[in-house]
């Protein structure tokens, strides 16, 4: 079975899920003039247990803007399900970290968050 050299030499840190399939928009290039974002997140990540896990496990592939779009919709159960799905896709989080992350997301991005 042939495969690209890329596949042998690079390991994606976190695969898929949040904010859609492969929304890995991390870039080392400066923004392009053609870009015309219609939405600016303005998301701040509050301090608390779970923040560092989120930064390490999620933001290597996903933009913070996604959190703003999900804010207010997901209960702790929904956030936990999302994190579990991400773990299945390769997110580097263990079972303990899943619970901490679910608590953090529910507290700061859950339905009752002001």
């Amino acid at each position, binding site marked *: *079975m*042939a*495969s*690209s050299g*890329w*596949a042998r030499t*690079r390991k*994606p*840190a*976190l*695969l*898929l*899920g949040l*904010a*859609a*399939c*492969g*929304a*890995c*928009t*991390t*870039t*080392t*290039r400066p923004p*392009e003039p*053609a*870009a*015309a*974002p*219609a*939405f600016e997140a303005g998301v701040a990540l509050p301090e608390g247990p779970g923040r560092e896990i989120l930064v390490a496990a999620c933001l*290597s*592939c996903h*933009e913070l*803007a*996604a959190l703003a*779009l*999900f804010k207010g*919709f*997901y209960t702790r159960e*929904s956030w936990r*399900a*999302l994190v*579990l*799905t991400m773990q*299945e*896709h*390769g997110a580097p989080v263990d079972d303990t970290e899943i619970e901490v992350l679910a608590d953090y997301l529910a507290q700061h991005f859950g339905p009752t968050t002001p």
Partner: protein
Amino acid sequence: MNKSVKRMHTLLVLAAALQALLAAEAQAQVRILQTNSLDTMVHLIDPATNEIVAEIPGIPVAHGIAAAPDGSRIYVSGEAETALKVIDAHTLEIIKTIPLSARPNNISITPDGRKVYVGIIASPGAIDVIDTTTLENVKTIDVPGGIHNIYVTPDGKNVVAGSIAGRRLTVLDTATDSEVWAWEGEAIRPMTISTKPDGSTDKLFVQVSGHHGFVVLDWDTRQEVARITQPDVPPEQRYDSTYNGAPAHGIGVAPDGKTLWSTSRMNSHVYVYSLPELELLGGIPTGTDPDWITFTPDSTRAYVANAVSGTVSVIDMQTLREVTQIPVGKSPKRNGIIRLGAH
């Protein structure tokens, strides 16, 4: 030039003019539907002018999009709301929000417009079936692994669903909504389908994680018959990213069935292959991180969503050149077309 020759010449000119007029009219009825995965807006592009002519607001984290074949409705899966949004194509108002069993990804509609299949990415994975007559979620089909992308075959007989976590491609019979076969061992990304002259399914072209190209599956034998790797560019010309594990993430067969188009996130190109030979016809530079692709029904223009650029590349399918880039929303991904007034 004698009189009859002159008359014939005039008739030919008139016929050509009429044909051009009809083609322009047909094009005018088509809109490109462009989702923006980090936005709340869906954009509608007129391919005659390549301008955004309408917007559908109020859908945070839109994932899949599909239009009713009769042009009456647009369906969009919303990841944040865990719902399928139903939009009146004439007023562009959301007329119903249908709750889904869990967080969705992509969707597909049957050729008769009666059912929308929704891939459920949330573990353990499922497919929701929406009855478009009652606008109800009528069935949840259990499948192994969260479903990322889902397609109804052009003949309407089957559903093809791909899972990344489950490393599985599942094929359902639309008459029974039950599994008929599966292909396992690869994390399945976007797919497209070619047909035989009678309209039945011929080949599946499947992008898989970690491969810069696509796999060709023969429908009848259910076996891999080819694995195409797309061209390389010098490392300094590559877009530096993890590509979320999918360096190629967007693929489509042109409506005329003559070419296959596959995007390269790694190279910021779209590559064109002849069908059925799969000979490389060319590579076209696009914006950064090209993802999904759709076509005008007359196979004259391709539209490629550039996720990082926030634009859509318009490609002339005859000259294989980019005509323009249209600024859209943030992180544009899935796209499609609607034929307005088709009913």
